[in-house]
């Protein structure tokens, strides 16, 4: 879970830097979209695990 | 109108202090991670809240997460207590509690008003 959160954040960082290196504007739009979607993924996963409380003990 | 401007000013000040806190906390975490003998004593601390509004609680929780050493874990169901994980607390929870009560909460209260 923590690693998933970190990986998505590092992916955004990578895209931003890659936009700087390559100069293709589209990478920046991808980074903006990913910055939103990554957060939603974390929220969904955390809610899912929290909901499974009691039925599953790990 | 005056109160609105004053609140905006307080918000800007809050953001400045927040950026400084973020730098300090990241340097602390970096030191804890990179020092060879990692011997921090984490601690779970409960913090009674004086802020009541939803926005206030959210701001306090987010600021706690990004300030030195601490990370918000949970809010109690009656919204009066915050559960905080402190990476470098040691044996007493009083220092953490006082840090939030005197450092973060008054600044948030000046912005949200309640």
């Amino acid at each position, binding site marked *: *879970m923590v690693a998933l959160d970190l990986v998505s954040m*590092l992916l955004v960082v990578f895209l*931003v830097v890659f*936009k700087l290196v390559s100069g293709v504007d589209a990478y920046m739009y991808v980074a*903006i979209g990913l910055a939103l979607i990554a957060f939603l993924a974390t929220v969904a996963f*955390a809610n899912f695990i929290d909901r499974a409380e009691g039925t599953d003990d790990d | 109108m005056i109160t609105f401007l004053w609140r905006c000013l307080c918000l800007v000040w809050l953001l400045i202090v927040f950026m400084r806190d*973020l730098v300090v906390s990241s340097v602390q975490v970096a030191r804890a991670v990179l020092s060879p003998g990692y011997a921090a004593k984490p601690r779970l601390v409960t913090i009674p809240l004086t802020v009541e509004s*939803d926005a206030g609680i959210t701001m306090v*929780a987010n600021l706690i997460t*990004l300030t030195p050493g601490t990370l918000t874990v949970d809010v109690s169901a009656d919204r009066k207590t915050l559960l905080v994980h402190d990476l470098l607390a040691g044996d007493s929870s009083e220092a953490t509690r006082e840090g939030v009560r005197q450092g973060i909460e008054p600044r948030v209260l000046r912005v949200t008003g309640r």
Partner: protein
Amino acid sequence: MTETLANALLLVGSFFCLVAGIGVVRLNDVFSRMHAATKAGTLGLALICIAIMLLADTWLHLAEAVFVFLFMIASAPVGAHLIGRAAFHNYQPMDPKTQADPESEPFRHPVRLPDSSLPTSELVAEPSHKSPDDPDNG
């Protein structure tokens, strides 16, 4: 001058991203790892975005960097909070050195407030939509 500053910021930012990664590998329970991932990662992203803002040549590029910065700053603590909550409710193993305030035990079992908007029938054993008692999950 501006370029030198931006390059320095890029270097420091990537150093903090590296620290975040090392921290996730090296620390030994969920909560400590989240400290590393959230704080160091956020600062790394913030510094890199500031470098991009310094190097931007049009207003659009500057605005894009500001957007990335704002979205990540706003969402990282909330994500960390939710992960910590889920881990705490599910009794994830903690560092044996961790001490806890005695008042923290009730947080393990959140009181599910009865949802008055639902009909109380025996067929509905458990309300299946969102739980009514989380005030700030995004």
